[in-house]
């Protein structure tokens, strides 16, 4: 097939998906939305299972033209606030999806890559939000400095949580992480002088670029976008960076070590994998993204309180990973987007949200434990072109990265 036809196929598929997403946003009736989503997701899952060879061909196609696909994706994503400028609410939902994508990717580093159960992820989100919120509000620190600081402080707490994780695992680790989440929650409520207690922190300033505040509508001369669009672009960039980082780390030696620890800690240790270093890094690296997401959230909404960072939020991020596919980066992204968008369509059933998450966890684990987009077997090939008898290593895990290691 000539190149341009392959590009055309890629473009058409992506446009189709994009149109579908816009359609879902546009349709009002939640039942029709559910039926549509069920049909499409069910169809895709069925197709992957039934015609795995054509799925693999399509996958390979996207892999061959990764740059083109990425380019089209960027254009489509950037176009979103322009198409939805009458609809700031949905831009806001898109921003939240982006934040959850960042968090889900971060949690996936712990739970998916390294197999370290963390049921207190909201704590990192909280630490990031309070760090950035308090620094920008009370100490006049620029958001652009507070953002990385929030990430780093969350990272430090990740390290701290990692210390007990060196000694305990499995069920015990789950307990420690829940306890960690609750302790942070209690501290937010009780350290009133610092955090404002249950009243939270109000009037957190919007980020500024020069004299332009991200909290004001974006005037491009020919078109004016609602202020949510500013945060949309910010989150888009941050999510892109997150994606880049996790894409780079998970097929690296560190990522492989994490997978080895996940599969069998004792065996990994016997092969000389440093458990201490790898586990601590898994927690710290994953926590960093929670902190970043929290900082953006705090300075966007302008108001934070302990209620924004409960155990429920930890469970929510966890169900995103389970829905999409543990250790599958595209899966995790899909899960995060679905679980942010679907509940928005069901505002009338607000009270049923948690029930819905509970059912997702149970049903996915019972019937499709690897998620909607399962992680693929990863292939490592040596630098020489395949077919000359060069060594091939395969491992389970985030496998769609195969091409990345070819060069």
């Amino acid at each position: 097939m000539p190149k341009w036809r392959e590009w055309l196929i890629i473009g058409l598929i992506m446009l189709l998906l994009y149109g579908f997403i816009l359609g879902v946003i546009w349709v009002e009736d939640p039942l029709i939305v559910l039926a549509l989503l069920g049909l499409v997701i069910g169809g895709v899952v069925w197709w992957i299972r039934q015609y795995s060879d054509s799925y693999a061909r399509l996958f390979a196609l996207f892999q061959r033209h990764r740059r083109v696909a990425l380019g089209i994706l960027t254009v489509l994503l950037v176009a979103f606030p322009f198409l939805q400028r009458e609809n700031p609410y949905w831009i806001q939902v898109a921003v939240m999806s982006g934040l959850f994508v960042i968090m889900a990717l971060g949690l996936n580093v712990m739970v998916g890559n390294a197999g370290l159960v963390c049921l207190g992820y909201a704590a990192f989100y909280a630490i990031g939000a309070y760090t950035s919120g308090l620094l920008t509000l009370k100490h006049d620190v620029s958001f652009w400095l507070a953002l990385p600081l929030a990430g780093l402080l969350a990272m430090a707490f990740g390290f701290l949580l990692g210390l007990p994780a060196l000694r305990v695992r499995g069920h015990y680790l789950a307990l420690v992480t829940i306890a960690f989440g609750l302790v942070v929650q209690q501290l937010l409520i009780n350290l009133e002088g610092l955090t404002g207690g249950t009243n939270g922190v109000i009037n957190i300033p919007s980020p500024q670029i020069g004299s332009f505040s991200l909290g004001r509508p974006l005037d491009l001369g020919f078109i004016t976008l609602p202020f949510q669009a500013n945060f949309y672009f910010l989150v888009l960039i941050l999510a892109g960076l997150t994606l880049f980082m996790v894409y780079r780390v998970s097929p690296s030696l560190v990522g492989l070590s994490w997978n080895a620890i996940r599969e069998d800690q004792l065996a990994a240790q016997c092969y000389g994998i440093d458990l201490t270093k790898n586990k601590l890094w898994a927690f710290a690296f994953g926590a960093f993204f929670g902190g970043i997401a929290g900082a953006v959230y705090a300075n966007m909404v302008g108001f934070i309180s302990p209620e924004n960072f409960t155990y429920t939020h930890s469970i929510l991020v966890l169900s995103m990973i389970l829905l999409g596919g543990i250790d599958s980066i595209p899966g995790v992204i899909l899960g995060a987007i679905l679980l942010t968008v679907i509940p928005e369509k069901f505002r009338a059933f607000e009270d049923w949200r948690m029930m819905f998450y509970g059912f997702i966890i149970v049903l996915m684990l019972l019937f499709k434990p690897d998620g909607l987009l399962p992680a693929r077997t990863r292939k490592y090939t040596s630098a020489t072109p395949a077919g000359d008898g060069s060594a091939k290593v395969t491992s389970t895990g985030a496998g769609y990265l195969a091409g990345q290691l070819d060069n």
Partner: protein
Amino acid sequence: MAEFAVVFQQLLNGLSLGAMYSLIAIGFTLFFGVIDLINFAHGEIYMLGAFVALITVSILGGMGLIGLNFIVVLAVVLLVTMIFCALVGAAVERSVVKPMRGAPDLMTLLVTLGVSIILREAVMLFYPNGANPQAFPDLLPAGDFSLGGVLIKYEQLFLLTVAAVLVVFLYFLVNKTDYGRYMRATSQDREAAMMMGLDIDRIIVLTFMLGSALGAVAGVLNGMYYNIIKFNMGFLMGIKGFSAAVVGGLGNIYGAVVGGLLLGFLEMFAAAFIPGGSRYQDVIGFLIVIFFLVFRPSGIFHEKVYEKV
């Protein structure tokens, strides 16, 4: 003397709290013993216990039977609650735990976590006005007496008696009956027990029923003690019960009892004697648990654990 009275008062309060932790911890430890599983839904069984008792009381009231001797009413309420929650426990085991047997630890842990959310939300959504706290009726004649300056409520006395009776009952069940023997065999080595012809599935489901019934009693006792119950009370209590089981040594029934009492004491004393301690009551409990996990992961009743290879 007054100082002593204060200490003893806190001791009694800690004992009451600890007894409830112990009853829940026993459930965790039983499940862990027979099937190496932490059942996150166990805290919700405890919450269900309180709600089922509340419903039973109102049904009894509707039939005009509440005027009976309070001992009869209590016995009926406890029995109904225990049976109902035992059945829920069995349903949980059959519907999600059994299909997940052999799956990685993480999966079984998360699936019971999912069930716990579903149970909790079901009560919130389907119990009339379930999102708000519910008043729990006084089932005992109200009253108290003083013993050397220590105020003892009838409720506390009842709570401790019931807990003690259940622990003694459990001792006989585990050590003197066939079922107890099978259970101990299963928890020592499931495969060997299976090869000796034991019906493992039945033993596991019975253990789930037993543990759930005990957890349910803790729920009823909690309702009677605080006179208020809420749909989300199971989460924190479940975590506390799990913590108590860990402190005592997971898989050890007596460890669970001791761990529960210890946790109850420590929390009460922290709340009473550390300045500003009551605000950090829960935090102190968790710090103790983390401390235990890090420095003595096998609990007070130390058993050397070898890693299976």
